[in-house]
């Protein structure tokens, strides 16, 4: 008899924890590039003293830079959020405190994501003058 090579055939899997785990890895790698790019632009290519309203307004005239900054914001925020969520899962064992912490973490993340996106998307250089 030939040895069987069939083995078990698992169904494709999914689930929040799997995607959260994958997201942490992918966003971590992307953030490394985005943050290094940000660092180079803001601290090496341009002097910190040269960064003012006009600088930002000029930069954000190009929608691609807005997209870059939005990705930096969203990825960093959600990456950090998931880290805290996982820590709450690990360490906060009392049910009441757990609900409270999770509501706080989800709430703050959503607030900052909305507020940040609002600024990035609706910024009008002319209005500021």
């Amino acid at each position, binding site marked *: *008899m*030939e*040895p*069987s*090579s*069939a*083995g*078990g*055939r*698992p*169904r*494709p*899997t999914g*689930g*929040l*924890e*799997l995607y*959260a*785990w*994958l997201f942490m890895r992918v966003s971590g790698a992307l953030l490394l590039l985005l943050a290094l790019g940000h660092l180079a632009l803001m601290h090496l290519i341009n002097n910190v003293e040269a960064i003012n309203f006009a600088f930002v307004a000029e930069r954000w005239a190009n929608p691609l830079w807005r997209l870059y900054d939005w990705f930096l914001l969203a990825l960093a925020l959600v990456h950090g959020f998931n880290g805290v969520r996982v820590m709450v*899962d*690990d*360490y906060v*064992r009392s049910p009441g405190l757990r609900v409270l912490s999770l509501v706080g973490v989800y709430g703050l993340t959503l607030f900052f994501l909305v507020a940040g996106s609002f600024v990035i998307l609706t910024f009008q250089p002319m209005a500021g003058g």
Partner: protein
Amino acid sequence: MRVKLRIKRFDGEGDREPYWAEYEVEAEPTDRLLDALHAVKWYQDGTLSFRRSCAHGVCGSDAMLINGRNRLACKVLVKDLGERITVEPLRGYPVIKDLVVDQTAFFQKYESVKPYLSPEGEPPARERLQTPEQRERFDDTTKCILCAACTTSCPSFWSNPDYVGPAAIVNAHRFLFDSRDAATAERLAGLNGTDGVWRCRTVFNCVEACPRGIDITRAIGEVKKALLLGRT
């Protein structure tokens, strides 16, 4: 050589708090710590309790926290531990007495991964054959002796006793990657939850603790990969 043993003791039926007891024994440098514990129990204080069975590193009964690390008392030599040795029960499980902990939860997690071969179809007239390569795929995780040294060294487990733990994942791995086994989907589904493999933060304490030298974090990583890609 004279060896000072500092042992964390606790009697669930009498003591409110654990306390440190000190014993001095004469030991050969090549004696195992288990021999020193025997010297205490047999000649100084018969009330000291600890588990041991085969005393040769195979049965997995005498894992304990030795000088701050999870080791088998029967596998570690006195000369490698120094003249002052601290011995504590494994962390994360209730202490029944002295160095004996309640491992009920440990074995419940073990059972939850269905640690037995579940082949498909009618049994063949002779053995279920497997190539040497197919056997090699899960060789590392067959070495587990269920001593609980890995799980009780894991910070994820300390903070969350619901975490299935490295030992159970190692034993799931042993069957997940076995070409004869057909319960892959079922096992993977059980490990995909909040308290499954995703609780592993790759701290590597388990690898450091394993007396069998199993590459546990790698095995857990392979299970994560199997979940992600949907194949083993």
